[in-house]
């Protein structure tokens, strides 16, 4: 196109555009704006139907589990004595290096002194496998995603570019950069190391001598986790409910 000549042309205006063409152009603009307003461009996760529960509970409501199997874990927190057998089992099973802030599961400790008597509380933590995972939303290469069959937040190490955006996005700090894999690594409920081989539980749950970690399909009414979650007397909570990620790791006192 001759740009010099083009400048001399008069603007033909929109009046001469066929109405169909104009209409589809406007539609596209509205769609783009609407999508941004609705946030679905940012929420690359496909689980727009995911629910965390009714307004006053963090426990999922029956019939609102988006996955075929919907794996979760419930911690009977006050039974944890920080023996860390779970940590050792996890490291061994999933080849998690020691040090460098690398962990797939950890135990937090809170010390308080009341009337000169030291009190301690231990809280096991791991990836919460959220229904609305912020890490998945921010990943620029879709290297981390919700496994459509199990709801587990998994990593595709080959796609990961190590930008660590997911580490910053995770409300639970449950991700680390693995120098071995040269990618981000995280808990995947032992999907490849145990569940794929027919085990019914994760390495950490199997190693726990106090039955703190109860792993299972929260969709299956016969599982212990289902029963614990839906026992009316159990007070169930999650960590950081306010971030709206709808975690699938629950806590209670036994």
């Amino acid at each position, binding site marked *: 196109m001759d740009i010099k000549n083009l400048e001399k042309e008069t603007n033909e205006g929109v009046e001469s555009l066929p109405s169909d063409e104009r209409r589809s152009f406007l539609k596209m603009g509205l769609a783009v704006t609407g999508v941004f307003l609705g946030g679905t461009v940012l929420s690359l996760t496909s689980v727009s139907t995911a629910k965390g529960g009714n307004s006053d509970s963090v426990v999922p409501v029956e019939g609102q589990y988006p996955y075929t199997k919907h794996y979760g874990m419930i911690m009977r927190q006050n*039974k944890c*004595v920080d*023996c860390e057998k779970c940590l050792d089992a996890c490291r061994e099973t999933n080849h998690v290096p020691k040090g460098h802030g690398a962990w797939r599961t950890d135990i937090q400790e809170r010390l308080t002194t009341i009337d000169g008597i030291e009190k*301690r509380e231990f809280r096991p933590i791991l990836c919460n496998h959220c229904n609305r995972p912020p890490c998945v939303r921010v990943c620029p290469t879709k290297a981390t995603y919700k496994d459509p069959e199990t709801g587990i937040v998994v990593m595709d190490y080959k796609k990961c570019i190590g930008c660590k955006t997911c580490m910053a996005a995770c409300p639970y700090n449950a991700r*680390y950069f693995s120098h071995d894999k040269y990618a981000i690594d995280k808990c995947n409920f032992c999907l490849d190391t145990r569940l794929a081989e027919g085990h019914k539980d994760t390495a950490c749950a199997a190693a726990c001598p106090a039955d703190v970690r109860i792993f299972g399909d929260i969709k299956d009414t016969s599982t212990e986790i289902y029963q614990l979650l839906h026992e009316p007397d159990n007070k169930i909570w999650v960590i950081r409910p306010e971030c709206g990620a709808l975690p699938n790791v629950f806590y209670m006192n036994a």
Partner: protein
Amino acid sequence: MNSNFFTTVGATLLVSTVLLAGNTLASDDYDVKAFGPKSPIVWNTPVKVIFEHRTHTDEIGLECNACHGEIFAMQRGVAPKTGKLTMAALADGQFCGACHDGDTAFASDTNCTACHVVPDDPIIWTKPVKAVVFYHKVHTEEYGLECDSCHNEAFTMKVGAAEKSSNFTMKALYDGQYCGKCHDGDTAFASNTLCNTCHIGAKGYDRLMGVDPHAAAQGVDNGGH
């Protein structure tokens, strides 16, 4: 100047005299040849035991050969090396038990803390789980327990004996063994409650042992961000 000099010399002499007199008096006070070594004998095998020569010689009036001869060699460290210096042997009339039979002197199964020392440091068990802490002083001083309240059926006196047993579990405690003998919810808080009173965890263990905080190694502090 002169008066100052004499004052100094005088003071020095006075102090030396007092010190010398003190030394002479002190050495007169305890006759090592008659009463045996002044400082107590401390055995560490099989467990820590303190023996005072002075109590037995100076205060009670025993002669050296009352014990040194058939019962104890005069040489240091012979008795523990035999491997036979146990409470069972004492009850059999050997070693201290020759006199400590309840007749001549208090029986060897009584008055434990006359010779034994209640450990200051906590007992820390790391098996079957890491880590459980036990303070002797809390139980003896605060709750006034006697040694044989526990060192009887519940626990042997030997270090690490409970840990070696495959039965040293919470299940056994619920069945009234070990700590569960008292920690049954009646005498003391039940062993299936207040877990973290005794279970200090791997982090508590590291802290007691002065190891770098475990949390740092695990990177709880948002490490890597």
